[in-house]
C-alpha cells in the first residue's frame, strides 16, 4: 500500500511537472509522453454472438511519461482498465502504475532500475516486451546492466520478476548476453564490405518447488528449480547479401504447455537474403522443438513468457488475408518462407509511365515428428530434426502495386491460404481459402483522397454450429474511405458472408487528426476471431456497438 502511494506520488509529481512546464525544461531536462484511451460499447447480437456490455462502457487507457536529463532518464506508465475491453484478460481490471524505471546511460555503462524491456538476439531465449493490442506485457521488474568495455563489445545482464497483470510472477529471471562486432573491434576490418557480428546469451529462471502429480498420483514430478536456456548467433553481410542465424537450446523445463515432459528444447532460425536497387529476395527457415519458456511453469495464459519465437509468415493487413493469422507453435513446428520483391522499371512495356511493384511471398509451416515416449514426468517424445509432419499453415500471395496516373493508384493482391485449426487448439479439417483484393486510391484534389477496397474470399469451409467458427464460408467486402485534407476521414465498410456461413459486419468510422492528436469514432459489428502480431495471438470476441479512440503525444 505504501509503495503504491509512493508510486502514485511520483507519478503525480512527474505528470504535474510535465504538463505545467509544457513538456520542456524540467530541472534542465525535458518531459515527453503519450496518452491513449480506447473505449467500446456493445449490445447483444445473437447472430454474431456478441454479448451486451453490462457496464455500458469499457475503457482501456494508458499514459506514458518520460523524463530525460542528459545521461539520466526516468519514466512511468499509468494504466487503467475500467473494465477491460472485450478480449483482454479480466485480470487486467483495475488501474495503477504499471511501469516505472530510472536509468543511467553512460559511455561504457548503462544501468536501469525498475521495469524494463530487453531482447537477446531474436528473442529465442529472452524477449521482454509489451504489445498493447495483444494485451500482453512481460516487462521485467529488477535491474538491467549493459557494459561496453571496448568499442564493438556489449555485455548485458538482467535479473528480476515478470509482470503478471497487476502483480509480479513468482519466478525469477536472470540473463547475460554478449555481442561482438568484428568491424568495430578489429581496426583493419573497419571499412570492410563484410560485416560480422556474433553473439551469445544465457538465461536462467528460478522457480520454487511445488507438487505436480504424475499420471500415477502417488508419484509427483521431481522438478528442476533452475532452468537454463542458451543461444549463439551470427549476423553476416557482404554487399547486398546478408545471413542471420541463431540456435537456442533449453534445459529440462517441465511445464503445463508441454504437458510436464523433461525433453530439452531447441530452436534454429536462419534468414538469408539479397537486395539491390529494385530487387530483393529473402528466404527464412526455422525449426522449433519444445521451446515454451515461461517464468512460472503452471501459467497457461498470455503472460510470463520469457522468450519469443520469431514468426516467418507474412503479417497481412487486408481483412480477409488476415482472417486466419498463424499463431507460432512454440511446442513444435518447422517452416520456410520465401519473399521476392521486384520493381519493373518505368518506361518499359510492363512498367508503364510510373513503374510497377511486384511482391511474391510464400510460407509453409508444419509440425515436427514426435515419437511418443510417455506422458507427464517422462522424456515425452523423440523427434527427427528434419522430418516435418502435418501441415499447419500455407500462404502464397502475390501483390501488384501500380500507379496508373497522377491521380490513381491500384494495388491488387491474390492470396492462397491453407490453415489447420489445430494451431488454435481445436480439431477440424484444413481450411483452404482463395482471396482477391483490389485497392484503388483516387486523388480527387491534392488534399482530398478517395479510396475503394474490394475483397473476395472463397473457402472450402462451411459454418458448423457445433464448432461455431464464424470465419467459415465465402465472403465479400467493400470499403469506401474519404480523406478530407488529411485531417478528417470517414469510411464505410461491410463484410458479408454470402455462402456457407453467417454474418454481415458493417462499420462506419470517423477520424480526426490534429498535430499529434488523433480521435476516431466507429460504429458497427466486429466478428469474433483472432488477431496475431508477430505470431503471438489474442482472441477477439464479437461486438456490436460503438468504439472510440483518443491518442496524443507531447
Amino acid at each position, binding site marked *: 500500500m505504501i509503495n503504491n502511494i509512493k508510486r502514485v506520488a511520483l507519478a503525480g509529481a512527474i505528470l504535474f511537472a510535465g504538463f505545467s512546464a509544457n513538456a520542456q525544461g524540467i530541472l534542465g531536462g525535458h518531459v515527453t509522453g503519450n496518452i491513449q484511451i480506447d473505449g467500446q460499447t456493445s449490445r447483444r447480437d445473437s447472430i454474431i454472438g456478441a454479448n451486451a456490455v453490462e457496464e455500458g462502457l469499457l475503457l482501456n487507457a494508458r499514459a506514458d511519461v518520460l523524463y530525460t536529463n542528459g545521461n539520466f532518464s526516468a519514466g512511468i506508465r499509468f494504466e487503467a482498465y475500467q473494465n477491460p475491453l472485450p478480449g483482454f484478460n479480466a485480470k487486467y481490471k483495475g488501474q495503477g502504475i504499471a511501469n516505472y524505471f530510472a536509468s543511467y546511460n553512460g559511455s*561504457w555503462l548503462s544501468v536501469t532500475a525498475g521495469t524494463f524491456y530487453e531482447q537477446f538476439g531474436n528473442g529465442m531465449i529472452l524477449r521482454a516486451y509489451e504489445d498493447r493490442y495483444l494485451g500482453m506485457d512481460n516487462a521485467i521488474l529488477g535491474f538491467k*546492466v549493459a*557494459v561496453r*568495455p571496448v568499442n564493438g563489445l556489449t*555485455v548485458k*545482464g538482467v535479473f528480476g520478476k515478470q509482470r503478471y497483470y497487476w502483480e509480479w510472477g513468482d519466478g525469477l529471471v*536472470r*540473463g*547475460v548476453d554478449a555481442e561482438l562486432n568484428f568491424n568495430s573491434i578489429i581496426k583493419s576490418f573497419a571499412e570492410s564490405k563484410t560485416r560480422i557480428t556474433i553473439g551469445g546469451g*544465457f538465461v*536462467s529462471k*528460478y522457480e*520454487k*518447488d*511445488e*507438487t505436480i*502429480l*504424475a499420471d*500415477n*498420483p*502417488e*508419484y*509427483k*514430478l*521431481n*522438478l*528442476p*528449480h*533452475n*532452468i*537454463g536456456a542458451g543461444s549463439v548467433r551470427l549476423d553476416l553481410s557482404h554487399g547486398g547479401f546478408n545471413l542471420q542465424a541463431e540456435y537456442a537450446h533449453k*534445459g*529440462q523445463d*517441465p511445464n503445463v504447455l508441454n504437458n510436464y515432459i*523433461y525433453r530439452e528444447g531447441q530452436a534454429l532460425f536462419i534468414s538469408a537474403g539479397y537486395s539491390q536497387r529494385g530487387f530483393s529476395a529473402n528466404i527464412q527457415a526455422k525449426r522449433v522443438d519444445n521451446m515454451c519458456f515461461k517464468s512460472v511453469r503452471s501459467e497457461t495464459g498470455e503472460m510470463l513468457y520469457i522468450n519469443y519465437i520469431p514468426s516467418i509468415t507474412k503479417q497481412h493487413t487486408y481483412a480477409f488475408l488476415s482472417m486466419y493469422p498463424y499463431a507460432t507453435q512454440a511446442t513444435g513446428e518447422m517452416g520456410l518462407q520465401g519473399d521476392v520483391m521486384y520493381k519493373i522499371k518505368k518506361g518499359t512495356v510492363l512498367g508503364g509511365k510510373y513503374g510497377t511493384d511486384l511482391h511474391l511471398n510464400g510460407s509453409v509451416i508444419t509440425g515436427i515428428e514426435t515419437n511418443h515416449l*510417455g506422458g507427464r*514426468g*517422462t*522424456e515425452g517424445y523423440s523427434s527427427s530434426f528434419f522430418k516435418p509432419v502435418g501441415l499447419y499453415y500455407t500462404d502464397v500471395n502475390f501483390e501488384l502495386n501500380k500507379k496508373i496516373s497522377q491521380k490513381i493508384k491500384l494495388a491488387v493482391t491474390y492470396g492462397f491460404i491453407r490453415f489447420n485449426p489445430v494451431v488454435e487448439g481445436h480439431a477440424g479439417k484444413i481450411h483452404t481459402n482463395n482471396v482477391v483484393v483490389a485497392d484503388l486510391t483516387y486523388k480527387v484534389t491534392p488534399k482530398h483522397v478517395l479510396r475503394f477496397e474490394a475483397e473476395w474470399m472463397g473457402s472450402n469451409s462451411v459454418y458448423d454450429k457445433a464448432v461455431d467458427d464464424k470465419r467459415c464460408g465465402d465472403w465479400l467486402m467493400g470499403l469506401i474511405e474519404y480523406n478530407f485534407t488529411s485531417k478528417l476521414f470517414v469510411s464505410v465498410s461491410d463484410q458479408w458472408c454470402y455462402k456457407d456461413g453467417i454474418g454481415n459486419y458493417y462499420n462506419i468510422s470517423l477520424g480526426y487528426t490534429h498535430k499529434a492528436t488523433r480521435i476516431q469514432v466507429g460504429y458497427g459489428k466486429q466478428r469474433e476471431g483472432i488477431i496475431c502480431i508477430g505470431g503471438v495471438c489474442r482472441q477477439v470476441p464479437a461486438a456490436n456497438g460503438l468504439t472510440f479512440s483518443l491518442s496524443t503525444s507531447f
Partner: protein
Amino acid sequence: MTIKHYSIQAILGVALLFFFAACDKIEPSEDGTYTVYSGAVGEWEDSDPVADHTHRVWIEKYTGPRCNNCPTADGVIHDICEQYAGKVIATAIHATQVFGTPIGSSPDLRTDEGEAWCTNFFGTSAAFPSVLLNRQKSGTTYTIINPTSPFTSDIDAIANEEAAVAMNVSSYFDSQVGKISITTSVELLEDIADDMTLTVLFIEDSIVATQKMPNGTENANYIHNHVLRGLVTDKWGFDIDCDKKQGTARKVTLRAELPEGVNIDNCQVVAFVSDKSSRTIYNVATCPIL
C-alpha cells in the same frame, strides 16, 4: 589495465559462473520417469456435514536439539496447549544442520519434509525457535513468531474468527493390511474461490533425546513432544476434489505405514486443509491412532 577493466572482468566472471551454474539437470529414475514418491492419495467422496465448527490453530514450531532457547519455547507452548485445549494443535519440526543435528547417539528427529518446509518459510537463514500459526501471511511474507514468550493474542486473532472450513479426522490401525487407515472429513462453511489441499502427518510424544538447555548445558533425558515424524501425503498436500461451494462436505480415506522407529502408542495424526497457492491453513484437526 584500468580499474574500469578490472571491474568489468570481475563482474563478467562472477556473472558467468553464476549463470552457468543456474541450470538443474534431473536424472531419470530406474523406470525412466522423472518422478518421486509423493505420498498417499485417495478418492474423495461425499460426506455428512462436520458437526464441530471450531477454528483451530496449528502451532508449527521449528526447533532442534542444538537450539538453546527451544526448551523455553516448549514451556510456553505447553502452557498455551493447556489454556487453549481443543483449539490449538502443536507440532515440533526439527530442522537444519545447525540446530537439528542430534547430539551424541540421540535419534535424528529431522525429516525431509520438515527441512523443505523450513527452507520454504525461512530461507537459508532460519532463526530458531520460530513459530508459524496456520501459515498466516502479512502481505506476501509469512508471519513468524518468536515463541519464547506467550503469544496468546496471535492465537486469539485466528481462533476467534469464524472457520471457513470445518474438519475432523479419525484413524485406526488396520491389522488386516498392516496399515493405518485415516479418514478426514471436510465441510466448507463458506464459498472458497481458490484450490485447497489436504496434508496429513504423524506426530509422536515422549521421545527422549539430548537437548541443549538455555543455560548451555545438555539434558540427555529431555522429553520431546508432538514431534513431526513423517507425512502421509505429499508435503504440500493433495488436491481436495470439491466444488468450493458453501455446504459442500467431502471425505477421503488414506492408508499409510507408520514411519520406522515410531511408537504407535505415542503417535497421533494431524491433518490440515490449506490454500494451494498461498499455503495458508484454513483449519486443522488431530486424532489418536486407535
